[in-house]
């Protein structure tokens, strides 16, 4: 693969899963600004989930299974499939180990059908901006063009992130939702939860995954570190509860949930974990959310009931 010239790629495809959600909107704009046409797999739906169950390793976590299914969907849709090797998205922190082998797994699974384009993203070594520049030059683009594309991509990501609901009115009480970005941004997975919360007229927010750096704590996984940091700085007066949305079989969450539980117990903030798997059980989800919100005596719910 390394021997061939890459400048003749006219289109690039990528799965709408996992790392894609870590940089919302960024990669599309980057490649498009470079003049490539971009194919992103369709949003997760029932068919994706079914395909994931059929083709992916049963012991994988849900996001990784979905990644496999999305990847399967875009193979052959463009000249090349792009999968970065995400080693870290935050300085002094590391990504989940499963992300480190993604390009290699893609080559192992689909290498015969499509070339795989990859770039290391390791914030400990260089910023994602520099990674994009390197990718551009590897693809044979001129420095100026790459630089403009990278800038456009970063600002697009910023806009996208700002559009997400991360802040609420100053006076409101709220629930903090903990979830990896790829759970949060995958509507198929998270929408039932948010829909239910909104239906109960509950205010909620989630940690700022776009932050540049955080104080180094005991948790070294990037997104989990951000969650931990948010919990440490949590205002017990206003945050009435923490809901942790975790994917089935998520290895990182299995550890940090215990840590969070201990931490929030000390802070005396109620904490609930919701494990989502590929088998829908929406009724159970609703019940648990309702019960949790009720148990806290959420005033809005009471108001609505009257």
């Amino acid at each position: 693969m390394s021997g061939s010239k890459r400048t003749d790629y006219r289109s690039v495809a990528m799965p709408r899963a996992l790392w894609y959600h870590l940089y919302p909107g960024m990669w599309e704009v980057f490649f498009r600004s470079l003049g490539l046409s971009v194919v992103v797999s369709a949003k997760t739906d029932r068919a994706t989930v079914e395909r994931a169950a059929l083709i992916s390793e049963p012991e994988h976590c849900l996001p990784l299974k979905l990644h496999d299914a999305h990847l399967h969907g875009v193979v052959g849709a463009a000249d090349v499939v792009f999968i970065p090797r995400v080693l870290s998205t935050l300085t002094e922190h590391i990504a989940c180990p499963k992300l480190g082998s993604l390009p290699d797994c893609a080559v192992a699974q689909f290498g015969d059908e499509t070339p795989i384009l990859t770039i290391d993203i390791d914030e400990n070594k260089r910023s994602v901006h520099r990674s994009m520049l390197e990718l551009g030059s590897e693809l044979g683009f001129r420095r100026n063009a790459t630089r403009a594309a990278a800038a456009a991509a970063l600002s697009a990501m910023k806009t996208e992130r700002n559009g997400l609901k991360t802040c609420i009115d100053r006076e409101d009480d709220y629930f903090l939702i903990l979830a990896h970005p790829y759970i949060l941004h995958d509507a198929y997975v998270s929408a039932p939860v948010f829909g239910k919360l909104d239906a109960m007229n509950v205010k909620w927010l989630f940690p700022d995954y776009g932050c540049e750096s955080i104080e180094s704590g005991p948790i070294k996984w990037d997104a989990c570190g951000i969650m931990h940091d948010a919990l440490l700085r949590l205002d017990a007066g206003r945050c009435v509860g923490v809901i942790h949305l975790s994917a089935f079989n998520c290895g990182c969450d299995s550890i940090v949930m215990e840590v969070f539980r201990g931490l929030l117990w000390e802070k005396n903030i109620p904490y609930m974990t919701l494990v989502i798997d590929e088998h829908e059980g929406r009724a159970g989800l609703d019940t648990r959310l309702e019960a949790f919100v009720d148990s806290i005596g959420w005033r809005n719910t009471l108001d609505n009931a009257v």
Partner: protein
Amino acid sequence: MEKQGYLGIDVGSISTNLVMISEDGGVLFQAYTRVDGDPIESIQKALSAMRDVLPEGFRVCGAGVTGSARYLIGGVIGADVVKNEISAHARAAIHLHPDVKTIFEIGGQDSKVTVVRDGVVVDFAMNLVCAAGTGSFLDSQAKRLNISIEELGEKALLSDTPTAIAGRCTVFAESDMIHKQQAGHRQEDIIMGLCHAMVRNFLNNVCTGKDIESPVVLQGGISANKGIRRAFESMLGSRPIVPRYNMVMGAYGAALIASDAGVRRTSYRGYEVCDLRIITSSFICSDCENRCEIVEVSDRREALARSGGRCRKWEGRVTKPGPPG
């Protein structure tokens, strides 16, 4: 009538099966017994039934045992060959259908897929802990619906729009099924939905990453179920072959393996097995820190076979001086 043959026994979690084959591999006798408690007792019953069918002076040249209790039973009856069920099932399927490429074997508590190429097993997988892709899944749902498992198969065929039933494991599927019942779905659609759920779980949990190619042979206790056959057909796009001796393929394979083994002098105890007064006891092995429980089967005072423990030193027949019966 043949004068000699080979015996095969499959001691599974749900059934105990027994097959006697002639030297050219034809089935002379077969018995499928649902186990309710003691597998040895059902073997004794099956053996006495066989005595009535086979001619006087019939000689057993070799005996093979397979199934989850293979070491213990192998010791009790004096088997010449003790084989794992994957190989035994594959042996029988390849014998009956030499062109088979994939074998689905779904039993009471486990399910397996075996990949065969050119008449040789090249890959296999077994279900892990979960019972969702096994026969017990249907059993428990049938119980819940208050119908027999045979009825369940018949009723499933009446369905034209199967209900989608979600759920990885029996418990979740059950709650979803109740939900669907409450929502007013027709019973036959729910039943067919259950069959689909079982097959889907089997394909998702067990067959992931395996090269599934036709012709597919479907065997094991579940293969008698018409609903399951239909579900496999619709999901695979081709009709799976259900072999002639679909319920006793493990025992059949064990008998074939015994006949392959070239046994010179069998150690099989013969009908003497029927007269054994079996006493099962157990003791704790204190040779290492695991302190495993070892099951011992004895006839009156004499120990016949032992099984259990994490190391394999207790497995099998209790060797004693003197020729076996």
